[in-house]
């Protein structure tokens, strides 16, 4: 995470406004273990039946499981559906 982005994130926290309004941080939401919504992403790195990797500003998010299907992908968000077993964050230092 860059210093400027870090500052923007902290400012958003102090002002009690949504973090993604000021910073470039990704937003990850899960609906049980069936659905993952990642906002503010930079693209798909790997798409396989049992693994999906999504690139973000802070690093990569790897979702492991089975029967993966990308429900929707556009410039802003990606919705992944399937049986989720594991989510790994490989963050930049």
């Amino acid at each position, binding site marked *: 995470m860059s210093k400027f982005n870090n500052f923007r994130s902290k400012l958003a926290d102090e002002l009690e406004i949504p973090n993604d309004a000021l910073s470039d941080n990704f937003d990850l939401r899960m609906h049980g273990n069936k659905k993952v919504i990642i906002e503010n992403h930079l*693209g*798909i*790195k*790997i*798409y*396989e*039946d049992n693994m999906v990797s999504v690139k973000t500003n802070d690093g990569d998010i790897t979702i492991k499981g089975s029967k*993966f*299907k*990308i*429900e*929707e*992908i*556009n*410039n802003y968000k990606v919705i992944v559906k399937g049986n989720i077993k594991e989510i790994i964050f490989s963050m930049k230092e």
Partner: protein
Amino acid sequence: MLIFKLMYLIRGYVVIHLDDINSEKTLNILRRRNITVWDVENKNKGIKFKISYDDYIRHSELINEIMKPVRKKGFMLKLNKLKFRKGFSIGLFILIVSLYLLTSMIWEVEVVGTNQINTKKIIELLQENQIKTPVSISQIEEKKLETLIYNSFENYKFVEVFVEGSKLIIFVKEKIPEPSKIKSNEPSSIISSKNAIISKVIAKSGQPVVKEGSVVYEGQTLIMGIVKNKNSEEFVMVPSDGIVYGKTYYNFEMKEEKIRNINVATNKSKTVYYLKINGNSIKIIGDKEPYENYNYRESNIYVPIVSKLTDISILKGVYYEEAATEVQIDEKTAQNKMKVSMYDELLKRCNEDSRIIKSTINFSEDEDFYYLIAQIEVIEDIGEKVRIYPIEDTTEETKED
């Protein structure tokens, strides 16, 4: 997501199959070009996904270069196809227009509740007011037509106009002619309306033909409307007027049970629900007639929106259990009850200005019943005015012939 898919089903979408091992790269290219991709699935060494038809047209060069569209789907695309099927399109258009015209016009006028002559008159009246079949339904103003028909004809007491399908129905109810009242200057006689003994005759005009103490029967003349002219010795007809009081006797026989069966409600009840469609009921929940003795009440439950649009409602029926019990009725209560119902009956049979002179009431009883035997003597006006008509004398004319 459902709304999103439905929207693209109408606007059109393209299903694309990509036989590429490095499919992630293609997805990222599409993302960078701001193309929304959905339903991405792994299929036989490649991926299958959907994009909107608008995006496909906008980036067709790129898409055709790197992948192949499998099929195009959507309502708008189907409509576009109709451009090439001109004959079918024109036929469909004509069918829709003619269906619209046929259903938006009145093709027949039906008059219910009157004879053919009046029906013709009503139709002529409508034609005078520019309502000739076929006529557009929008031109029909029911309330205005009802007023027009009601005001134009005097013999209708009720008029209702409504449109049913392509038919204009005019429902009329004719007035029943009232029986004509006897005018004060018309020749009339007064006859007896009941069997009675005459107690007083007050004749203001006409010739009284009964005396005090005479026994008269129903229909017998009391005051005659034909009197002799003192000067010319001829009989003339006059309007009769007067009051004739007569003694009438009313006999009553009544009985009342000593023990009566009365149903008393217990606090138990059971509910049954029916689905009511077009007047037919289908049982959904509960049992019919769950008790031997019961009181049944039902009410309609209207389903919001559904009941307004269709004739579907829910009928709720409640069975309240009742237990039959025997009640002993004492003598005084029974006698009072019989007396009250006797006087009620007497009031119905007598005139308003009647006066009771003597009443003989006897009570008796047996094992099961209390009895009342009574005779009531009443003085009342028994006269009833009837119109009299002159009989034309044709005997002289026949003699001359």
